[in-house]
């Protein structure tokens, strides 16, 4: 490095570009100090590379590495797992930049850069991210090739004629990726996917995800509603329901401790407590990973898709927490009848002692006035229709939260209405419970998918009421609809004053912007559905379509191994056929055909014999061939040694003549007998 010219130094500094490019997407997820440290280390290394000054001493690099490790530990409290491990790896990689001078170290660093790129997929796997990372990956390989060429350049003592061109290296890298692409795609399709993780770091599960949980406290849903994140996408094949009226049922919260509501335990129901009514909808549900087991359905799913179950309270859930984007195909009956066991009803009547005395008193008043449960429930709803305000910013509530809400603030959100209503019903002796989930959704006109966001989160009530024939079942009651019917009909932005809308939710009013957003989300959804969502069940379905006998895990494993081998062999054959050889002119090839034929006929050419003499000798022995052979020879000599290398068309004509002569000779009766 000490003897390098500035030009070589500048060219060599190119190898610093890939680490920076791979770092860029990470910057958004890394702590600010860590991003700054990486950029500073990178800048320092670039300065050293351009000026040709010596790298810091080994001691300094060791101190930096220890300090980096310590800082990561202080920030995350651990060094392992994806939360701390990825930042640690990135920081150490940038420390390592300071010690990478030799060719071998540069190679190593560029390899580690690939790993850094891969680790970003833990944060996001969207289409643009993937395209960007793959492009940088190609660039990284190009940088590797370029460094090899530069090392050669040093050996050629800076000979400017052989100065390597970065574009040639880029082309080479792209070629290598292109050559490996069939292999990669086959493996992508066939490599057996697992549904669950192999191991888990305790911290990884805490990676905060927005979404509904099994507890509901005042303010939870108001927080959730600030988030424009997509909770899930749904598509209805065939009959399309009115999306605005859909209640996507999630956790059912029955236990109340005076402040928070807790979901019913996800255990199998004692007996099937439900029955479907009417027509089914064909639902394709694609869930974003929310680290919980809840699945969301606008009705009773039947039969149950694989890996899912219905727990007590008709809580549809996955057997494992949804840790990755997952698709479920189900028949869903929007009409259903839901029954309850005695224990369930007992729990749904429970009112903790000593809280919300005013609300209890009100409920007892109602009880006295309406002996009929249905009349009482209706009266409760009417109570909310006057004097209450729908707002995302309710005042803080005290210990008696229901009392404070009903008789004090009278301002609140769906969770306040739902929990207060359920409390009143219970106090009046009617079993009731809170159900959380999502309400409504937005149809993307491009691909017909219903997009349901966290901002569509909702809470409502289920009340145990007799129907017209006196048979009791759970009935959905939504007190929010009484306060603000537009919340149900037109979504959140219809219900809230414009000033109160969270900024993320301000819908784009310009039509073309809206179209663009729809297009973008449709593209993303296609990506999610077809590429990211490609998992074991899709693999097996693919195999079942083409190779039914192999549609199991063992078949997948065998096929992926076979595909790997086949891809490798195909690649080898392709490259072998492309391997450089002396190009043989077509004329020579034709001439060699004649020579081989004559040799088979007993007239091999002698070493050192010239074509003309050879043909004379053969013709003397076989006068019958003289004319044909002479013609062949003449045309051949013109093609090979003709004075004027004439225009290509003329050449082509002569070549055709040679070909004809050779064919005639080969098919001549006297030559065919042998």
């Amino acid at each position, binding site marked *: 490095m000490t003897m390098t010219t500035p030009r070589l130094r500048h060219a060599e500094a190119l190898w610093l570009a890939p680490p920076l490019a791979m770092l860029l997407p990470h910057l958004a997820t890394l702590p600010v100090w860590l991003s700054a440290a990486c950029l500073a280390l990178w800048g320092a290394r670039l300065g050293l590379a351009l000026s040709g000054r010596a790298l810091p001493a080994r001691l300094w690099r060791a101190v930096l590495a220890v300090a980096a490790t310590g800082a990561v530990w202080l920030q995350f409290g651990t060094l392992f797992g*994806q939360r701390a491990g990825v930042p640690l790896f990135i920081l150490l990689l940038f420390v390592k930049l300071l010690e990478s001078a030799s*060719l*071998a170290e540069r*190679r*190593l660093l560029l*390899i*580690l850069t*690939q*790993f850094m*790129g*891969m*680790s970003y*997929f*833990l944060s996001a*796997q969207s289409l643009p*991210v*993937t395209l960007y*990372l*793959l492009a940088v*990956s190609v660039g990284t*390989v190009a940088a*590797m*090739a370029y460094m*090899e*060429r530069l090392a*050669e350049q040093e*050996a*050629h003592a800076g000979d400017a004629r*052989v100065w390597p061109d970065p574009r040639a290296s880029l082309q080479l890298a792209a*070629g*290598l*990726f*292109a*050559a*490996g692409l069939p*292999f*990669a*795609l086959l*493996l*992508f399709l066939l490599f057996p*996917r*697992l549904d669950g*993780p*192999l*191991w888990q770091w305790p911290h990884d599960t805490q990676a905060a995800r927005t979404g509904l949980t099994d507890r509901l406290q005042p303010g939870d849903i108001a927080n959730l509603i600030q988030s424009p994140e997509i909770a899930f996408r749904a598509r209805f094949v065939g009959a399309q329901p009115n999306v605005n009226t859909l209640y996507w049922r999630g956790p059912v919260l029955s236990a109340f401790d005076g402040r928070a509501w807790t979901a019913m335990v996800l255990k199998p129901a004692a007996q099937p407590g439900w029955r479907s009514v009417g027509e089914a909808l064909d639902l394709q549900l694609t869930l974003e990973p929310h680290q919980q087991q809840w699945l969301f359905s606008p009705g009773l799913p039947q039969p149950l898709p694989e890996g899912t179950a219905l727990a007590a309270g008709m809580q549809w859930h996955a057997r494992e927490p949804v*840790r*990755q984007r997952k698709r479920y195909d189900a028949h869903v009956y929007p009409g259903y009848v839901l029954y309850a066991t005695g224990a369930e009803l007992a729990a749904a009547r429970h009112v903790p002692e000593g809280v919300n005395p005013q609300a209890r008193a009100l409920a007892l008043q109602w009880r006295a006035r309406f002996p009929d449960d249905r009349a009482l429930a209706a009266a409760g709803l009417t109570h909310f229709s006057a004097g209450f305000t729908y707002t995302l910013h309710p005042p803080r509530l005290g210990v008696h939260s229901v009392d404070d809400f009903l008789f004090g603030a009278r301002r609140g959100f769906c969770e306040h209405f739902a929990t207060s209503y359920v409390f009143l019903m219970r106090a009046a002796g009617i079993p009731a419970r809170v159900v959380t989930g999502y309400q409504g959704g937005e149809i993307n006109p491009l691909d017909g998918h219903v997009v349901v966001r966290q901002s569509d989160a909702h809470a409502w009530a289920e009340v145990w009421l007799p129907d017209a024939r006196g048979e009791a079942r759970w009935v959905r009651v939504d007190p929010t609809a009484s306060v603000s019917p537009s919340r149900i009909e037109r979504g959140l932005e219809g219900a809230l004053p414009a000033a109160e809308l969270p900024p993320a939710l301000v819908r784009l009013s310009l039509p073309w912007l809206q179209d663009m957003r729809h297009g973008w989300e449709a593209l993303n959804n296609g990506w999610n559905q077809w*590429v*990211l*969502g490609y*998992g074991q069940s899709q693999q097996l379905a693919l195999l079942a379509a083409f190779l039914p006998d192999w549609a199991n895990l063992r078949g997948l494993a065998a096929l992926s191994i076979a595909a790997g081998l086949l*891809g490798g062999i195909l*690649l*080898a054959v392709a*490259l*072998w056929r492309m391997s*450089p*050889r*002396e*190009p043989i002119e077509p004329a020579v090839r034709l001439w060699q055909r004649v020579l081989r034929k004559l040799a088979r006929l007993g007239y091999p050419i002698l070493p050192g014999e010239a074509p003309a003499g050879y043909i004379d000798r053969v013709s003397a022995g076989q006068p019958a061939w003289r004319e044909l052979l002479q013609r062949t020879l003449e045309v051949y000599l013109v093609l090979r040694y003709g004075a004027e290398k004439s225009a290509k068309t003329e050449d082509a004509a002569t070549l055709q003549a040679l070909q004809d002569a050779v064919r005639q000779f080969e098919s001549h009766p006297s030559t065919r007998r042998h």
Partner: protein
Amino acid sequence: MGARQRRDSVNPARRATGWAFLPLRNGFMRRLFRLRPLEPLPYRVSPRRIYILPTRQGMVFGLLLMGMLLGAVNYGLSMGFLFTFMLAGMLLGALLATWRTLINLEVLRVDGTPGFAGEPVYFRFKVLQPGTRPASGLWLDAPETAPARVGLNGEVTLSLVATRRGPLKLGPCRLYTEAPLGLFRAWTIFAPDCTVWVWPRPTRQSPPLPAPAGGRESTHDAQRGGTQQGSEDFDGLKDYSPGESLARVAWKSLARRDDDTPPQLKRFIGDPAGELWLDWAATPQLDQEARLSLLARWVLMAEQGQQPYALRLPAERVASGHGPQHRVRCLNALARHGYRAGGMP
């Protein structure tokens, strides 16, 4: 004193290239590398004789790919799978690209340049790249030599410090490359039939040249140093033999003749026509190598003295002559001493 090394014409300092430890004398290894005892050049690199292994960085890449795959499986990263498999495909492409760098290469010839023991001898190779590509990223080495990069013109020279007088056989050579990414190294081993004669190392100090013997008209005493004075008087012609000084060719008489007889040399009175004999028998009774070293020094001294000289060894003699070719002939005779003409001891 020519301290005789027990090592077999190798320089231990050059034993750094690693592959010298391959037991190529072992029958299994020879079969594995399809090594023939000696091969005629040109040697064309065929697919069956290319070997390929990952470099250290290549192995690290492989391990990292395994790690990536595990990560993709564990966290269910669909794009992780794609990324990993694309890199794996790229790696496969790189493997074949490395392999392709060697395929159909041709080692056209190798010329050995002899030298004195203790000094480097050179083996100059010519490697032909098929097609129009310039040779790039190609290296050549032999067990005892440092690797040398094949030049853009396909020329490459291996140098080897000869430690011992006698025949020096260039062992199996290895042509290798790590292009284009440095993740794989492909190599081929071939054993060109190339032997150079290592001349004896000339002694530092030596007794003076022996006196020319058998002069026609002068005594032994008059010969020493009399060369220059006597050169003025023409004495006659004698036949030219290769290696003799062109300054003495009788060009005029040569121009007059049109037959094929060799040119005539002018002879002068006082010439050491009686020839300076560098004679094995005239050297002190030292061991064989020391005597050869002394003779080598004498050859150099005689050559410097511009006077024709002849060499007599127990089994070989070189007729009198002068000039670079004559010098090489004499030194080669010294190098061959004790070995059969075929070159093998």
